[in-house]
């Protein structure tokens, strides 16, 4: 399923995206759950109290997430390609993607 020279995601990029989302959520938690601590002091995520510190991810977890996302994309292409082939075409068209999309989203 994986050959080594195939492109994949950069773990650093995935880390940055995760961090971005988690910091947003941590700030939301801080605003909602702890109204007395919202002194506007921690806008850059390094939450002051331990409780509100944003989640982090370890290196292997990031690599595994990269792999999961890569599989998601390759599955989309493979499945759409199978439908296209069944119709005797080598061009993946929007209708092919539409056909595979429901099951793809259920599978991930």
């Amino acid at each position, binding site marked *: 399923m994986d050959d080594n020279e195939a492109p994949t995601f950069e773990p650093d990029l995935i880390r940055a995206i995760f961090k971005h989302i988690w910091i947003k959520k941590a700030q939301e938690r801080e605003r909602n759950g702890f109204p007395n601590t919202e002194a506007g002091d921690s806008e850059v*995520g390094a939450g002051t109290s331990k409780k509100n510190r944003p989640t*982090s*991810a370890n290196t*292997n*977890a990031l690599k595994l*997430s990269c792999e999961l996302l890569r599989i998601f994309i390759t599955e989309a292409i493979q499945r759409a390609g199978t439908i296209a082939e069944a119709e005797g075409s080598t061009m*993946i068209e929007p209708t092919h993607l539409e056909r595979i999309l429901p099951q793809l989203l259920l599978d991930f």
Partner: protein
Amino acid sequence: MEVDEDNRSDFEKEEEEEDDSVSDLLRDRFRLSAISIAESEAKRSGMEISPPIVACIADLAFKYIGQLAKDLELFAHHAGRKSVTMTDVIVSAHRNEHLAASLRSYSDELKAKEPQSERKRKKVPRKEDKGIDGMVNIPDL
């Protein structure tokens, strides 16, 4: 929508957060990577793919990573951790046995590559594990 590899090579780490422009930048980088993965996969299987489809798949993947981030955080917190580990990623794929099995064997590979794992060695790497015992075993922390 032609994408070349060198868009990704000048990737420099950004540590500043919380800007819509930063989030746009991250999204665009993610999309570029996704597009190059999709195009190389299409080429590998000898298919042609129209650019709007590639863009659409990249968008799907971006939505998926948003959902994934929330899931992973939830799982880690549920386990009483502040940091996401590989088990969280595997649990996030638990609905799909084959996907979970594939991720598990990949995680075993990663673990084998860096043998700095200290206490979660109780599971011997089983490459052909088909995940019938669907539960991911979560080490007691």
